[in-house]
Protein backbone atom coordinates (compact mmCIF):
# COMPACT_ATOMS: atom_id res chain seq x y z
CA UNK A 1 0.00 0.00 0.00
CA UNK A 2 1.39 3.42 -0.85
CA UNK A 3 2.58 5.19 2.28
CA UNK A 4 3.13 8.71 1.04
CA UNK A 5 0.40 10.34 3.10
CA UNK A 6 -0.52 13.79 1.83
CA UNK A 7 -2.95 15.38 4.33
CA UNK A 8 -5.64 17.51 2.76
CA UNK A 9 -8.21 19.67 4.46
CA UNK A 10 -11.04 20.39 2.09
CA UNK A 11 -12.86 23.52 3.19
CA UNK A 12 -16.59 23.67 2.91
CA UNK A 13 -18.64 26.81 2.67
CA UNK A 14 -17.58 28.54 5.84
CA UNK A 15 -21.02 29.43 7.05
CA UNK A 16 -22.75 26.20 6.09
CA UNK A 17 -22.99 23.11 8.23
CA UNK A 18 -20.26 20.81 6.89
CA UNK A 19 -22.11 17.67 7.94
CA UNK A 20 -24.86 18.49 5.45
CA UNK A 21 -22.41 19.37 2.74
CA UNK A 22 -19.95 16.56 3.37
CA UNK A 23 -21.26 14.08 0.73
CA UNK A 24 -20.94 16.75 -1.89
CA UNK A 25 -17.46 17.72 -0.71
CA UNK A 26 -16.41 14.08 -0.68
CA UNK A 27 -17.63 13.53 -4.21
CA UNK A 28 -15.95 16.66 -5.39
CA UNK A 29 -12.66 15.67 -3.73
CA UNK A 30 -12.88 12.13 -5.14
CA UNK A 31 -13.47 13.42 -8.64
CA UNK A 32 -10.57 15.85 -8.40
CA UNK A 33 -8.34 13.12 -6.97
CA UNK A 34 -9.20 10.70 -9.78
CA UNK A 35 -8.57 13.33 -12.38
CA UNK A 36 -5.08 14.08 -11.04
CA UNK A 37 -4.32 10.38 -10.55
CA UNK A 38 -5.24 9.62 -14.17
CA UNK A 39 -3.12 12.55 -15.28
CA UNK A 40 -0.19 11.16 -13.24
CA UNK A 41 -0.52 7.69 -14.78
CA UNK A 42 -0.85 9.15 -18.27
CA UNK A 43 2.24 11.28 -17.80
CA UNK A 44 4.17 8.25 -16.58
CA UNK A 45 3.04 6.15 -19.55
CA UNK A 46 3.94 8.93 -21.94
CA UNK A 47 7.42 9.50 -20.50
CA UNK A 48 10.05 8.66 -23.15
CA UNK A 49 11.82 6.25 -20.75
CA UNK A 50 8.57 4.34 -20.15
CA UNK A 51 7.68 4.30 -23.84
CA UNK A 52 11.12 3.03 -24.83
CA UNK A 53 11.23 0.27 -22.23
CA UNK A 54 7.67 -0.83 -22.99
CA UNK A 55 8.62 -1.14 -26.64
CA UNK A 56 11.09 -3.91 -25.72
CA UNK A 57 14.43 -4.95 -27.17
CA UNK A 58 13.84 -3.68 -30.68
CA UNK A 59 12.91 -0.11 -29.77
CA UNK A 60 14.99 2.86 -30.87
CA UNK A 61 16.58 4.99 -28.13
CA UNK A 62 13.83 7.62 -28.18
CA UNK A 63 14.71 8.79 -24.67
CA UNK A 64 18.13 9.87 -25.91
CA UNK A 65 19.72 8.40 -22.79
CA UNK A 66 22.16 6.33 -24.85
CA UNK A 67 22.91 8.98 -27.43
CA UNK A 68 20.57 7.29 -29.88
CA UNK A 69 22.50 4.02 -29.78
CA UNK A 70 20.75 0.74 -29.00
CA UNK A 71 17.92 0.90 -26.47
CA UNK A 72 17.36 0.93 -22.74
CA UNK A 73 15.66 -2.47 -22.52
CA UNK A 74 18.80 -4.22 -23.77
CA UNK A 75 21.20 -1.83 -22.04
CA UNK A 76 19.69 -2.47 -18.61
CA UNK A 77 19.73 -6.20 -19.30
CA UNK A 78 16.06 -7.20 -19.29
CA UNK A 79 15.08 -10.49 -20.81
CA UNK A 80 12.69 -10.71 -23.72
CA UNK A 81 9.16 -10.96 -22.33
CA UNK A 82 9.96 -8.98 -19.15
CA UNK A 83 7.51 -6.25 -18.22
CA UNK A 84 9.55 -3.85 -16.07
CA UNK A 85 6.91 -1.11 -16.18
CA UNK A 86 4.07 -3.12 -14.62
CA UNK A 87 5.23 -2.90 -10.97
CA UNK A 88 5.43 0.89 -11.24
CA UNK A 89 2.05 1.10 -12.88
CA UNK A 90 0.54 -1.10 -10.17
CA UNK A 91 1.93 1.19 -7.48
CA UNK A 92 0.66 4.33 -9.20
CA UNK A 93 -2.78 2.77 -9.70
CA UNK A 94 -2.92 1.86 -6.02
CA UNK A 95 -2.93 5.53 -5.01
CA UNK A 96 -6.09 6.44 -3.13
CA UNK A 97 -7.82 9.16 -1.14
CA UNK A 98 -9.09 8.53 2.37
CA UNK A 99 -11.64 10.69 4.19
CA UNK A 100 -10.72 11.12 7.84
CA UNK A 101 -13.56 13.15 9.29
CA UNK A 102 -15.53 16.31 9.46
CA UNK A 103 -14.41 19.52 11.10
CA UNK A 104 -16.51 22.63 11.74
CA UNK A 105 -15.06 24.13 8.57
CA UNK A 106 -15.02 21.19 6.20
CA UNK A 107 -13.80 17.61 5.68
CA UNK A 108 -10.34 16.20 6.30
CA UNK A 109 -8.86 13.73 3.85
CA UNK A 110 -5.48 12.17 3.04
CA UNK A 111 -4.06 11.12 -0.30
CA UNK A 112 -1.74 8.12 -0.44
CA UNK A 113 0.65 7.81 -3.35
CA UNK A 114 3.79 5.68 -3.63
CA UNK A 115 7.11 7.15 -2.55
CA UNK A 116 10.13 7.15 -4.82
CA UNK A 117 11.82 4.68 -2.46
CA UNK A 118 8.87 2.28 -2.79
CA UNK A 119 9.18 2.38 -6.55
CA UNK A 120 12.95 1.93 -6.37
CA UNK A 121 12.40 -1.14 -4.19
CA UNK A 122 9.94 -2.63 -6.68
CA UNK A 123 12.12 -2.14 -9.74
CA UNK A 124 15.19 -4.35 -9.35
CA UNK A 125 17.95 -4.65 -11.88
CA UNK A 126 17.59 -8.01 -13.64
CA UNK A 127 21.16 -8.97 -12.71
CA UNK A 128 21.39 -7.52 -9.18
CA UNK A 129 18.08 -7.41 -7.36
CA UNK A 130 19.20 -5.00 -4.63
CA UNK A 131 19.77 -2.33 -7.25
CA UNK A 132 16.99 -0.33 -8.82
CA UNK A 133 16.89 0.44 -12.51
CA UNK A 134 14.57 3.43 -11.91
CA UNK A 135 17.07 4.91 -9.45
CA UNK A 136 19.73 4.20 -12.05
CA UNK A 137 17.82 6.12 -14.71
CA UNK A 138 18.02 9.17 -12.44
CA UNK A 139 21.53 8.70 -11.06
CA UNK A 140 23.42 6.55 -13.55
CA UNK A 141 23.51 2.96 -14.83
CA UNK A 142 26.55 0.99 -15.84
CA UNK A 143 26.52 -1.05 -19.02
CA UNK A 144 27.07 -4.26 -17.06
CA UNK A 145 23.59 -5.61 -17.79
CA UNK A 146 24.19 -5.39 -21.49
CA UNK A 147 27.61 -7.08 -21.22
CA UNK A 148 26.08 -9.90 -19.19
CA UNK A 149 23.42 -10.25 -21.85
CA UNK A 150 26.16 -10.61 -24.40
CA UNK A 151 27.74 -13.38 -22.34
CA UNK A 152 24.37 -15.08 -22.17
CA UNK A 153 23.95 -14.93 -25.95
CA UNK A 154 21.58 -12.02 -25.89
CA UNK A 155 18.82 -12.80 -23.41
CA UNK A 156 16.97 -9.65 -24.35
CA UNK A 157 16.80 -10.59 -28.01
CA UNK A 158 17.80 -7.16 -29.24
CA UNK A 159 21.09 -7.21 -27.37
CA UNK A 160 23.13 -8.88 -30.07
CA UNK A 161 21.72 -6.94 -32.98
CA UNK A 162 22.47 -3.64 -31.31
CA UNK A 163 25.72 -4.83 -29.79
CA UNK A 164 28.15 -2.49 -31.48
CA UNK A 165 25.88 0.48 -30.90
CA UNK A 166 25.36 -0.15 -27.21
CA UNK A 167 28.99 -1.01 -26.52
CA UNK A 168 29.86 2.54 -27.49
CA UNK A 169 26.94 4.10 -25.62
CA UNK A 170 27.37 6.23 -22.52
CA UNK A 171 24.30 6.52 -20.34
CA UNK A 172 22.93 10.00 -19.72
CA UNK A 173 21.04 10.47 -16.44
CA UNK A 174 17.42 11.61 -16.80
CA UNK A 175 14.71 12.81 -14.42
CA UNK A 176 12.10 10.12 -14.03
CA UNK A 177 10.22 8.81 -11.00
CA UNK A 178 11.31 11.34 -8.36
CA UNK A 179 10.41 14.32 -10.54
CA UNK A 180 7.04 12.81 -11.43
CA UNK A 181 6.13 12.14 -7.80
CA UNK A 182 7.34 15.57 -6.65
CA UNK A 183 5.16 17.22 -9.26
CA UNK A 184 2.05 15.23 -8.40
CA UNK A 185 2.54 15.50 -4.65
CA UNK A 186 2.18 19.27 -5.11
CA UNK A 187 -0.89 18.83 -7.31
CA UNK A 188 -2.55 16.51 -4.78
CA UNK A 189 -1.81 18.99 -2.03
CA UNK A 190 -3.74 21.60 -3.97
CA UNK A 191 -6.92 19.49 -3.95
Amino acid at each position, binding site marked *: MPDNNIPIIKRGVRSAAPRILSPELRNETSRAFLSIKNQMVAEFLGHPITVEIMAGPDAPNISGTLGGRGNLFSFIGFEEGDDPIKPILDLLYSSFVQFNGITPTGIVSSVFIPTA*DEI*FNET*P*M*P*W*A*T*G*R*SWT*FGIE*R*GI*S*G*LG*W*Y*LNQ*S*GAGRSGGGLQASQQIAAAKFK*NTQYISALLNKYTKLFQSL
Partner: protein
Amino acid sequence: MREQFQHSLITSFSLWFDHYLLDKGDAYYNTTGTFHPATDARLTSHNIFASPYKQFVSDSSITGANICSGAYVTGVFKGRSDGVIVDFENGRILSTGIASGSAMTGSFAVKDFNIYFVNETEEDLIVENKYTPTSDFPSANAAITPYDMTVPAIFISSETMQNDPFAFGGQDKTRTLVKAVIMSDDVYKLDGVLSIFSDARNEAFKILPFISHPINEYGDIKSPPYNYTSLADASGNGLFYIDRVFASKLSDKSKKLLPNNVFIGFLDFDIYTHRFPRL
Protein backbone atom coordinates in the same frame (compact mmCIF):
# COMPACT_ATOMS: atom_id res chain seq x y z
CA MET B 1 45.28 22.65 -9.67
CA ARG B 2 43.86 23.72 -6.34
CA GLU B 3 41.96 21.21 -4.26
CA GLN B 4 38.32 20.89 -5.34
CA PHE B 5 35.21 19.48 -3.70
CA GLN B 6 35.60 16.16 -5.48
CA HIS B 7 39.13 15.69 -4.09
CA SER B 8 37.86 16.26 -0.59
CA LEU B 9 34.96 13.87 -1.10
CA ILE B 10 37.23 11.10 -2.35
CA THR B 11 39.64 11.55 0.57
CA SER B 12 36.87 11.74 3.16
CA PHE B 13 34.88 8.81 1.80
CA SER B 14 37.78 6.43 1.27
CA LEU B 15 39.20 7.02 4.77
CA TRP B 16 35.75 6.70 6.36
CA PHE B 17 34.95 3.56 4.34
CA ASP B 18 38.19 1.87 5.35
CA HIS B 19 37.72 2.77 9.02
CA TYR B 20 34.04 1.76 9.08
CA LEU B 21 34.70 -1.65 7.57
CA LEU B 22 37.60 -2.42 9.89
CA ASP B 23 35.82 -1.05 12.96
CA LYS B 24 32.34 -2.54 12.47
CA GLY B 25 33.41 -5.77 10.85
CA ASP B 26 36.86 -6.49 12.30
CA ALA B 27 37.69 -7.09 8.67
CA TYR B 28 41.37 -7.83 9.27
CA TYR B 29 43.56 -10.44 10.88
CA ASN B 30 46.82 -10.17 12.77
CA THR B 31 49.57 -12.38 11.49
CA THR B 32 53.31 -12.76 11.25
CA GLY B 33 55.37 -13.56 8.21
CA THR B 34 58.52 -13.27 6.20
CA PHE B 35 59.34 -10.28 4.04
CA HIS B 36 60.91 -11.67 0.87
CA PRO B 37 63.50 -9.81 -1.16
CA ALA B 38 61.81 -8.21 -4.16
CA THR B 39 62.40 -5.67 -6.87
CA ASP B 40 60.50 -2.59 -7.93
CA ALA B 41 61.39 -0.70 -11.06
CA ARG B 42 59.92 2.47 -9.58
CA LEU B 43 62.10 2.30 -6.47
CA THR B 44 65.58 1.38 -7.54
CA SER B 45 67.09 3.46 -4.72
CA HIS B 46 65.58 1.23 -2.02
CA ASN B 47 65.95 -2.40 -1.03
CA ILE B 48 62.54 -4.01 -1.12
CA PHE B 49 61.20 -6.68 1.23
CA ALA B 50 57.71 -7.80 0.36
CA SER B 51 55.24 -9.87 2.34
CA PRO B 52 52.93 -12.38 0.66
CA TYR B 53 50.01 -10.08 1.52
CA LYS B 54 48.69 -6.84 0.10
CA GLN B 55 47.28 -3.97 2.16
CA PHE B 56 48.15 -3.72 5.86
CA VAL B 57 45.93 -1.93 8.38
CA SER B 58 47.39 1.52 9.08
CA ASP B 59 44.61 2.97 11.27
CA SER B 60 45.57 2.74 14.94
CA SER B 61 42.00 3.55 16.04
CA ILE B 62 41.13 -0.06 15.16
CA THR B 63 41.25 -1.82 18.50
CA GLY B 64 43.30 -4.99 18.41
CA ALA B 65 44.90 -4.43 15.02
CA ASN B 66 48.66 -4.86 15.04
CA ILE B 67 49.87 -1.78 13.18
CA CYS B 68 53.20 -2.52 11.53
CA SER B 69 55.96 -0.13 12.55
CA GLY B 70 58.98 -2.02 11.33
CA ALA B 71 60.43 -5.51 10.99
CA TYR B 72 62.95 -7.88 12.52
CA VAL B 73 66.23 -8.32 10.69
CA THR B 74 68.03 -11.39 12.00
CA GLY B 75 66.13 -10.99 15.25
CA VAL B 76 66.79 -7.24 15.73
CA PHE B 77 63.85 -4.85 15.37
CA LYS B 78 64.31 -2.10 12.81
CA GLY B 79 61.84 0.73 12.85
CA ARG B 80 61.37 4.10 11.21
CA SER B 81 64.22 5.55 13.24
CA ASP B 82 66.46 3.06 11.42
CA GLY B 83 65.32 4.35 8.06
CA VAL B 84 62.66 1.69 7.53
CA ILE B 85 59.62 2.62 5.45
CA VAL B 86 56.45 0.56 5.82
CA ASP B 87 54.51 0.40 2.55
CA PHE B 88 50.99 -0.27 3.88
CA GLU B 89 49.48 -0.20 0.39
CA ASN B 90 51.65 -3.02 -0.96
CA GLY B 91 52.50 -4.96 2.21
CA ARG B 92 56.21 -4.20 2.02
CA ILE B 93 59.21 -2.86 3.89
CA LEU B 94 61.49 -0.43 2.06
CA SER B 95 64.94 0.45 3.28
CA THR B 96 68.18 1.96 2.11
CA GLY B 97 70.16 0.74 5.11
CA ILE B 98 69.28 -2.94 5.30
CA ALA B 99 71.19 -5.23 2.97
CA SER B 100 69.03 -6.66 0.20
CA GLY B 101 69.54 -10.31 1.09
CA SER B 102 68.75 -9.93 4.79
CA ALA B 103 66.33 -12.32 6.48
CA MET B 104 63.36 -10.19 7.54
CA THR B 105 60.22 -11.08 9.47
CA GLY B 106 57.46 -9.01 10.96
CA SER B 107 54.00 -8.90 12.44
CA PHE B 108 51.15 -6.90 10.98
CA ALA B 109 47.40 -6.70 10.49
CA VAL B 110 46.21 -7.66 7.01
CA LYS B 111 42.95 -6.30 5.62
CA ASP B 112 40.31 -8.84 4.59
CA PHE B 113 39.59 -6.59 1.60
CA ASN B 114 42.05 -4.42 -0.26
CA ILE B 115 40.44 -1.07 -0.99
CA TYR B 116 41.11 0.80 -4.21
CA PHE B 117 39.77 4.07 -5.57
CA VAL B 118 39.42 3.53 -9.31
CA ASN B 119 38.20 5.27 -12.43
CA GLU B 120 37.09 2.12 -14.23
CA THR B 121 33.51 1.24 -15.11
CA GLU B 122 31.80 -1.75 -13.57
CA GLU B 123 31.86 -3.59 -16.85
CA ASP B 124 35.62 -3.03 -17.15
CA LEU B 125 36.17 -4.31 -13.61
CA ILE B 126 33.91 -7.33 -13.85
CA VAL B 127 33.67 -8.46 -17.44
CA GLU B 128 37.29 -8.09 -18.46
CA ASN B 129 38.20 -10.74 -15.91
CA LYS B 130 41.35 -9.02 -14.72
CA TYR B 131 40.87 -9.94 -11.11
CA THR B 132 40.95 -13.61 -10.23
CA PRO B 133 41.66 -14.67 -6.68
CA THR B 134 44.55 -17.09 -6.75
CA SER B 135 43.87 -20.37 -5.02
CA ASP B 136 47.08 -20.21 -3.02
CA PHE B 137 46.69 -16.60 -1.86
CA PRO B 138 48.43 -15.51 0.25
CA SER B 139 51.38 -17.18 -1.36
CA ALA B 140 53.51 -18.79 1.34
CA ASN B 141 56.89 -18.26 -0.22
CA ALA B 142 56.60 -15.36 -2.58
CA ALA B 143 56.01 -11.66 -2.63
CA ILE B 144 53.10 -10.20 -4.52
CA THR B 145 53.95 -7.99 -7.45
CA PRO B 146 53.73 -4.38 -6.28
CA TYR B 147 50.92 -2.09 -7.47
CA ASP B 148 48.81 -4.97 -8.81
CA MET B 149 45.26 -4.76 -7.53
CA THR B 150 44.53 -8.00 -5.74
CA VAL B 151 41.24 -9.69 -4.90
CA PRO B 152 39.53 -9.87 -2.37
CA ALA B 153 39.07 -6.19 -2.99
CA ILE B 154 36.62 -3.32 -2.97
CA PHE B 155 36.77 -0.92 -5.90
CA ILE B 156 35.32 2.50 -5.14
CA SER B 157 34.43 5.08 -7.76
CA SER B 158 32.70 8.42 -7.69
CA GLU B 159 30.02 8.41 -10.36
CA THR B 160 27.85 11.50 -10.59
CA MET B 161 27.53 14.83 -8.83
CA GLN B 162 24.60 17.23 -8.89
CA ASN B 163 23.93 20.58 -7.19
CA ASP B 164 20.35 21.50 -6.27
CA PRO B 165 19.31 24.84 -4.75
CA PHE B 166 18.90 24.49 -0.97
CA ALA B 167 18.75 27.87 0.75
CA PHE B 168 18.87 31.60 0.11
CA GLY B 169 22.36 33.01 -0.15
CA GLY B 170 23.61 30.49 -2.70
CA GLN B 171 23.65 27.36 -0.58
CA ASP B 172 23.28 24.16 -2.60
CA LYS B 173 22.65 20.56 -1.68
CA THR B 174 25.33 18.57 -3.47
CA ARG B 175 24.37 14.97 -4.17
CA THR B 176 27.08 12.53 -5.13
CA LEU B 177 26.69 8.91 -6.07
CA VAL B 178 29.61 6.79 -4.96
CA LYS B 179 29.67 3.16 -6.07
CA ALA B 180 31.63 0.25 -4.69
CA VAL B 181 32.15 -3.08 -6.43
CA ILE B 182 33.06 -5.83 -3.99
CA MET B 183 34.96 -8.85 -5.27
CA SER B 184 35.28 -11.58 -2.72
CA ASP B 185 36.71 -15.06 -2.65
CA ASP B 186 33.84 -16.31 -0.50
CA VAL B 187 30.22 -15.42 -0.03
CA TYR B 188 30.46 -15.08 3.77
CA LYS B 189 32.78 -12.10 3.54
CA LEU B 190 30.74 -10.58 0.73
CA ASP B 191 27.54 -10.81 2.77
CA GLY B 192 29.38 -9.26 5.72
CA VAL B 193 30.47 -6.19 3.74
CA LEU B 194 27.01 -5.70 2.23
CA SER B 195 25.41 -6.00 5.65
CA ILE B 196 27.79 -3.55 7.34
CA PHE B 197 27.29 -0.85 4.75
CA SER B 198 23.54 -1.40 4.37
CA ASP B 199 23.38 -0.24 7.98
CA ALA B 200 25.34 2.90 7.12
CA ARG B 201 22.21 4.68 5.96
CA ASN B 202 21.91 8.02 7.79
CA GLU B 203 25.52 7.86 8.91
CA ALA B 204 27.57 11.04 8.63
CA PHE B 205 31.29 11.35 8.15
CA LYS B 206 33.65 14.28 8.43
CA ILE B 207 34.78 16.38 5.48
CA LEU B 208 38.55 15.96 5.36
CA PRO B 209 40.81 18.04 3.11
CA PHE B 210 42.79 16.23 0.45
CA ILE B 211 46.04 17.16 2.21
CA SER B 212 44.97 15.29 5.34
CA HIS B 213 45.30 11.91 3.61
CA PRO B 214 47.63 10.04 5.96
CA ILE B 215 49.59 7.99 3.40
CA ASN B 216 52.64 9.31 1.55
CA GLU B 217 54.11 8.42 -1.83
CA TYR B 218 55.86 5.33 -0.39
CA GLY B 219 52.63 3.96 1.08
CA ASP B 220 53.78 4.79 4.62
CA ILE B 221 52.06 6.99 7.19
CA LYS B 222 53.07 10.64 6.86
CA SER B 223 53.07 11.33 10.61
CA PRO B 224 52.77 8.10 12.57
CA PRO B 225 50.60 7.01 14.19
CA TYR B 226 47.57 7.53 11.95
CA ASN B 227 44.31 7.44 13.89
CA TYR B 228 41.12 8.03 11.84
CA THR B 229 39.03 8.95 14.87
CA SER B 230 41.49 11.62 16.00
CA LEU B 231 41.85 12.95 12.47
CA ALA B 232 38.07 13.23 12.07
CA ASP B 233 37.62 14.80 15.52
CA ALA B 234 40.18 17.48 14.70
CA SER B 235 38.78 18.37 11.29
CA GLY B 236 36.02 20.91 11.93
CA ASN B 237 32.27 20.52 11.71
CA GLY B 238 31.65 19.82 8.02
CA LEU B 239 29.86 16.55 7.31
CA PHE B 240 28.82 14.32 4.46
CA TYR B 241 25.50 12.53 4.99
CA ILE B 242 24.72 9.09 3.61
CA ASP B 243 21.11 9.42 2.53
CA ARG B 244 20.66 5.98 0.99
CA VAL B 245 22.64 2.83 0.47
CA PHE B 246 21.64 0.17 -2.04
CA ALA B 247 23.33 -3.16 -1.42
CA SER B 248 23.06 -5.99 -3.91
CA LYS B 249 24.78 -9.07 -5.20
CA LEU B 250 25.31 -10.15 -8.75
CA SER B 251 22.63 -12.76 -9.27
CA ASP B 252 23.69 -16.40 -9.46
CA LYS B 253 22.32 -16.58 -12.96
CA SER B 254 24.53 -13.71 -14.06
CA LYS B 255 27.52 -14.93 -12.06
CA LYS B 256 27.47 -18.17 -14.04
CA LEU B 257 28.06 -16.13 -17.19
CA LEU B 258 31.41 -14.93 -15.87
CA PRO B 259 34.46 -17.12 -16.31
CA ASN B 260 36.12 -16.54 -12.93
CA ASN B 261 34.99 -17.73 -9.52
CA VAL B 262 34.61 -14.36 -7.81
CA PHE B 263 31.60 -13.41 -5.70
CA ILE B 264 30.51 -9.92 -6.68
CA GLY B 265 28.44 -7.37 -4.81
CA PHE B 266 27.55 -3.73 -5.25
CA LEU B 267 27.10 -0.80 -2.88
CA ASP B 268 25.62 2.46 -4.14
CA PHE B 269 25.98 5.37 -1.71
CA ASP B 270 23.79 8.43 -2.20
CA ILE B 271 25.75 11.14 -0.35
CA TYR B 272 24.61 14.68 0.45
CA THR B 273 26.35 17.73 1.71
CA HIS B 274 25.38 21.40 1.92
CA ARG B 275 27.81 23.95 0.56
CA PHE B 276 28.27 27.30 -1.15
CA PRO B 277 29.88 26.27 -4.46
CA ARG B 278 29.90 29.77 -5.96
CA LEU B 279 31.39 31.64 -3.01
